[in-house]
């Protein structure tokens, strides 16, 4: 946030196809290698060309993983910019834009940057983003030369002339900015640090893909749907290296049924989609429930109902996955809160699916998947992979009754036994039954697995000193970053946070922490779905719900405001 001198927030705006994404992609590694922590998030329209998209880039001394609404510097390429961003622009915002384009909407904090002219000078309109990158480097005091290595590497394949045009463009942007009246100069938040080279830059999609690979995932069948597609393309890109079977299904129904078929035959299978596609998978989820076959279902959430806002963010599908699929059977729901946590939780999700032979839901959202941030290599945890598959014998029965409801998991072709799974109610050997008695035992067997599942649930992550706080701000999934930053800013011993990355079943010990406190739940939806779940699980009402369902993520500023309201009344 702009009040914080250790923090600089840049926003690049432009039409789809103008390459604003390229600006931040170029700057991020330079900044990282210069020792800064960076965080970048994007919002874009559901179109391939035109419109108005933005990418935010925060440069911070301390690690931040949160969207901030106030802007220090805005580089605006499309005429829609000022209108669309007016709520985020204030006196402190420096706006770089081509005056010609903006006409009347020009203000005192606008700097007339002849982008078009500079880009043309460098070689054409497509160099505008490199011009901007050059300008940024100058504004934040990084020598333009650091950029050249990046440009060389990135464009060498396209030929020397492209590389040198890019050098030229960067130089023009840099020079233009250097000549601005000195009042505009902005210093980087903290002196450059060492060690940046050790850090990684990663978005949520990559983290999810890496987590899945680490988990031994070797099968994905899915149908494209934003923002769920990223996992599919990540695994497709790494399919060859890791022997992953990648199938683009004809529809989501096929996807989950193929996933279950594969899992039945011994694969570690995942499907990825968003809410609408997930609706179509629900009968398959129910099938997973009765045949006790592991499957991980990733849902990249976006605003609904129906098509809604396809490229925006929301946390609207918690209630859906809690009850998805007809009939009654156990399940687990996870929602990681940071890039590093995605990698860990993805592994846990596969492990829980495999161990308990259940469908496991992994909830993310557009904001979290597209956000890029620095992470330390050490933050990437690799968990052991446990396979529950056994070699069968002649006497093998897929649904053998056991104390904890978990039957040894055989697969066809491994061992001498045969493996029968049936969507009908069945007996221990998997054969269809109409016995009420067998039904009763099977219902019990299936549900019994919840006990261990609940006891083993992942505890919520405390933010601040939960024990002493009188008010607990509860969040889940992608809201971890904003809550962490807001609470740190707010810095009151009365207030602490609790972030849930496992939403179901809930760890009983974590629920205990809510007792006798004021509980505020913050979530990116209109109804307060997690608040409802907490009421159900604890039998207590939630004191306050902080909700937002506009398609945008919460900003740190909004969370701080909510905290301030607490203090004032």
């Amino acid at each position: 946030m702009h009040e914080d001198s250790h923090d600089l927030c840049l926003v690049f705006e432009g039409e789809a196809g103008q390459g604003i994404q390229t600006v931040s992609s170029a700057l991020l590694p330079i900044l990282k290698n210069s020792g800064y922590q960076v965080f970048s998030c994007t919002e874009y329209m559901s179109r391939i060309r035109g419109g108005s998209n933005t990418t935010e880039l925060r440069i911070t001394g301390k690690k931040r993983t949160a969207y901030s609404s106030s802007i220090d510097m805005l580089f605006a390429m499309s005429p829609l910019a000022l209108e669309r961003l007016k709520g985020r622009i204030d006196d402190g915002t420096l706006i770089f834009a081509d005056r010609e384009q903006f006409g009347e909407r020009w203000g005192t904090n606008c700097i007339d940057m002849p982008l078009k002219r500079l880009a043309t000078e460098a070689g054409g309109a497509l160099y505008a983003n490199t011009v901007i990158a050059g300008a940024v480097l100058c504004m934040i005091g990084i020598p333009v030369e650091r950029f050249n290595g990046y440009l060389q590497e990135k464009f060498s394949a396209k030929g020397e002339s492209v590389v040198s045009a890019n050098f030229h463009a960067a130089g023009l942007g840099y020079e233009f900015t250097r000549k601005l009246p000195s009042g505009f100069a902005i210093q980087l938040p903290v002196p450059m640090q060492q060690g940046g080279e050790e850090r990684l830059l990663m978005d949520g999609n990559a983290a999810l893909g890496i987590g899945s690979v680490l988990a031994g995932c070797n099968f994905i069948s899915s149908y494209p749907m934003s923002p769920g597609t990223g996992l599919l393309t990540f695994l497709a890109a790494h399919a060859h290296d890791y022997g992953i079977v990648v199938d683009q299904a004809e529809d989501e129904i096929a996807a989950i049924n193929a996933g279950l078929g594969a899992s039945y035959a011994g694969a570690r299978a995942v499907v990825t989609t968003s809410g609408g596609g997930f609706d179509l998978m629900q009968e398959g989820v129910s099938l997973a429930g009765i045949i006790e076959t592991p499957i991980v279902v990733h849902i990249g959430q976006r605003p609904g109902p129906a098509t809604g806002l396809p490229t925006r963010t929301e946390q609207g599908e918690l209630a859906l996955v809690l009850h998805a699929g007809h009939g009654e059977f156990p399940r687990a729901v996870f929602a990681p809160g940071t890039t590093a946590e995605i990698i860990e939780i993805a592994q846990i999700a596969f492990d829980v699916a495999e161990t308990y032979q259940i469908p496991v839901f992994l909830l993310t959202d557009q904001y979290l998947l597209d956000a890029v941030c620095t992470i330390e290599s050490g933050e990437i945890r690799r968990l052991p992979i446990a396979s529950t598959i056994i070699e069968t014998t002649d006497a093998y029965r897929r649904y053998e009754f056991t104390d904890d409801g978990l039957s040894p998991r055989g697969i066809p072709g491994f061992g001498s036994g045969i493996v029968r799974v049936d969507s009908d109610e069945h007996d221990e050997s998997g054969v269809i039954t109409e016995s009420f008695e067998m039904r009763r035992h099977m219902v019990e067997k299936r549900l019994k697995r919840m006990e261990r599942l609940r006891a083993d649930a992942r505890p919520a992550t405390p933010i601040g000193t939960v024990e002493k706080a009188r008010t607990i701000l509860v969040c889940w999934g992608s809201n971890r970053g904003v809550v962490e930053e807001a609470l740190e800013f707010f810095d009151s011993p009365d207030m602490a946070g609790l972030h849930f990355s496992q939403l179901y079943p809930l760890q009983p010990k974590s629920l205990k922490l809510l007792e006798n406190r004021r509980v505020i739940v913050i979530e990116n939806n209109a109804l307060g779905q997690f608040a409802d779940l907490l009421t159900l699980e604890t039998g207590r009402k939630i004191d306050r719900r902080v909700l937002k369902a506009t398609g945008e993520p919460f900003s740190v500023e909004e969370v701080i405001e909510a905290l301030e309201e607490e203090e004032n009344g």
Partner: protein
Amino acid sequence: MDNSLHTFDMPAETDIAWCPGCGNHMLLKAVKTALQNLGIARNRLVMVSGIGQAAKAPQYLDVNMFNGLHGRSLPAAFGIKMANRDLVVVVESGDGDMYGEGGNHLIHAIRRNFDVTVIVHNNMVYGLTKGQASPTSHRNMKTPVQTGGVILEPFNPLAFAIALDAPFVARTWAGDVRQAAAIISEAIAFRGFALVDVFQPCVVFNKLNTWQWFREHTTKLPDDYDPSDKINAFRFALQDDAFPLGVFYRNDSKALYEDLAGLDNKPLYQHNPPDETKVSRMIEAFR
């Protein structure tokens, strides 16, 4: 147990839920005969089905079984094959299951051309749900839903599969167990997607297409029939005064999905955890 000399018989006390006189009994015999002829090891065979009377067939064979959702046998079969291409995958399904609820999967499973055999018990009616029209029901059949009689022309699975370039398309019927067993054997032995539509009398709900009716309305493909000629196969598939039985179309040179996709011979369950060096390299790319 020596899995390769298996009869596929279920224990004698197994309660077969099909009606007496139903064509499914004959078809079950044909399938068993085919499996025995081929000498497939019991534990390498997976029978996959959806839901319906036809789809109960795997319940009556002593083999690996994935009895999934109504209409969804093909995606499951695909997943199974991808996870372990050493398995022999055979789908049994009904006309409602495969051509109604499952139509989209049939289109795209045919396009994929993975190695699977699809046997459709085509009784031209929804049996398990008590006699509504199926996609293959003939005109004017009265049912509790089609009270004035069926008004649509029946779906033609053969013309459809040929148009989609399925490399093995055949029709047989439950009244000729020998032919059925022979064609099913051929289909299972075929490398690629093989569709076998089987006329099957439903003695309870289909009073139009009875044993007698099928005997009278089926014929053989001509002796000199050339199953490699697609246009001709299409022409014969459209014939509906007497429905020809036999292998309509066969193309042995169509590439197999497993090969095109470069599918590993090692089943997925035998894959090792990801290699540390590779993992580091993957992660390093984000530095």
